[in-house]
């Protein structure tokens, strides 16, 4: 059993060096807005319809409560999440490894060594294309070991992917 460690000696992960693009805030906001538009109207329409056409007081109250229960968190997320994500999401590549931090409430740091990287892809969904953004995905031999960097500028992402591909092809090591 290890001895109790002095607080000052305790380790923590420093944030990766680079931020993503500011435009990513808009991207995340648009995504959250779409999600809200898909979920909130359902109980809302049900509540309105039931209110117009029936007199079932308890059902009306239940449906409005449900609508509030869905709408309030959705709107809160829409307002708070994008900026929070922008402040958290970071990425960094060194000669030896790729390092990312993602999330907002739940946060996850991921590290993978260059010698174990198998593929480097870029992806652009329709929203991302609208904003000139791109996602870089780095996969390793582990199915659960992939790293994603969302919200990079498209050209920058293409350059990063090309650089990483070059480095990983040059690095020795068995990628399996």
């Amino acid at each position, binding site marked *: 059993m*290890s001895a109790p460690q002095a607080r000052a000696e305790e380790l923590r992960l420093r944030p990766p060096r680079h931020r993503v693009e500011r435009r990513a805030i808009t991207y995340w906001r648009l995504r959250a807005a779409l999600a809200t538009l898909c979920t909130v109207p359902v109980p809302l329409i049900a509540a309105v319809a039931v209110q117009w056409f029936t007199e079932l007081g308890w059902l009306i109250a239940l449906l409005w409560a449900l609508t509030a229960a869905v709408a309030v968190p959705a709107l809160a997320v829409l307002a708070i999440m994008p900026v929070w994500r922008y402040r958290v999401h970071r990425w960094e590549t060194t000669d030896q490894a790729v390092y990312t931090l993602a999330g907002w409430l739940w946060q996850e740091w991921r590290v993978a060594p260059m010698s174990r990287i198998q593929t480097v892809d870029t992806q652009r969904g329709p929203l991302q294309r609208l904003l000139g953004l791109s996602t870089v995905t780095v996969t390793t031999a*582990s199915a*659960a070991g992939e790293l994603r960097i969302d919200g990079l500028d498209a050209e920058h992402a293409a350059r990063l992917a090309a650089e990483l591909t070059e480095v990983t092809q040059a690095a020795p090591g068995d990628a399996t």
Partner: protein
Amino acid sequence: MSETAPETNEEWLRLSPLTLLPTILVMGAVFALPALVAVPVTALFGVLWPVGVLILLGAVLLCGLVVGVEVLRYRHTWYRVTEERAEMRSGVLARTHLSLSRERIRTVDLQRPLWHRPFGLCYVTVGTGQSAGSGEELKLDPVAVEEGERLRRELLHRAPVRQPDPEGGTQQEEDTDGPSADELVAMRRRWFAYGAASLASAGVGFGVLAAAAGVLSDVVPTLLGQAFPGAADAVIDFAAQYLLLAVLSSLFGAIVLGGLFALALYIEAWWGYRLTREPDGTLRVRRGLLNVSSISIEERRLRGIRFMEYLPVRWLGAASVAAVASGLGNTKQQTQGVVPKPYLTPELPRAEAARVAGEIMPGAEPGPPLTPHPRAALSRRRFRACALVAVLAAGGAGLGGGLAPVPLWAALAPAAVVLPLALLYAQGAYRGLGHRLDARFVRLRRGMVLRSTAVLKREAVIGWRVHRSPMQRWRGLSTLGATVAAHKGVHWAPDIGTGQGLALAQQAVPDLLTPFLERVDGGSAAPRQDQDARPG
């Protein structure tokens, strides 16, 4: 490879000429026999024409159709193994040509279901470990057992195998060994007893029981009621009078029956079990009574093992070992019947399981106790237990309050009963958490019912993930994940102290995390000597 028509190319091999026999056997048992029984019965009842004749015609047509399809399949299936590839051409209407690079072949499994056994046949599945269905798996059904063994040796071994052929007398034997295969463990009869309590077989066993009970509960009472008219009422009266006795005895009967089913399944799965280390560098698991299967795992694909101490067999002092390896297929492919592919051993007495773990990977057997996680992890689990009980109590209060004619105290009783159990569960879950670093391995343990220790080779860890929820951040915890190139890509250490976990990760794989770590007071994290890194 030049694309020549199979018929003219000498290298291409066919399936076994005995292909039709298992099919005929199965058709005979499933269709022909019942038809042959039914026809005289219809004659007895005087409806030989048209019912009996229709049945006969139907059976003949079905058998003929199936046999015909099998003949076509046999005539249009060819396979060959060259220096670089394993190929198969098949298909009557839609011709497919499946070609696997030998470098990517990870598994060669031999299965011998009951209907293949009398003819000395087996079916071979050659896989790359990727998801099947996208042309990543080659199935040869059936080939002779010797041919299956030859394919297994050739495909799993990169260099040609310099082995004398097995003596003629052993050709017909099941599962021939190479001359110097090293047996690690073989089944002993008394270990079958664990099967009644083993979770996987128990799950299926009780499921079968429940299904059977559902079916029989309709049929049996009506039949019995017709046979013994007064008995049904008498039984119901008796049960109503001695309700508790009736409930308890039915429960007991269900448990016993379910346990027997589970035991039967387990015996079928693990009969004749042997784990051997073959001279070509693979570990081979052989087991099975009705469906004999042989699963080979290359040792160089072995990233580690999992030492599993599942309830309830853990209370009986048993444990088992599973492989953490690449190329065992994704989760869908993995479950063959009751036993998933990565399982290397059945439930063994713990000391025996530890010994086998050490034989598979020297140093991997359980040793000194693992370092516990911070107490905050315990309070998190206790909190969840209380939250669950609170939900139960709220539901009970709702019921007692007016939705159902149940007094309040009775509605809250379940919550009161569950509370101490939930707290005990939380305690057990906390005690299941632990980690340790040896000279060669990283050990991460978790779980209460499904308690398992992942013993990973340090060089097999190819990345780290550190996950933190807001609650964990508040308590100074995080969840550390080690990624490995195996089907279960990441192994977690939940609720480890943040600093504790990072120190573990830093020492386990030097130089990977170090550039990104800093000390809490702002200094850089130079590599530290830690008393955990004792030689294993």
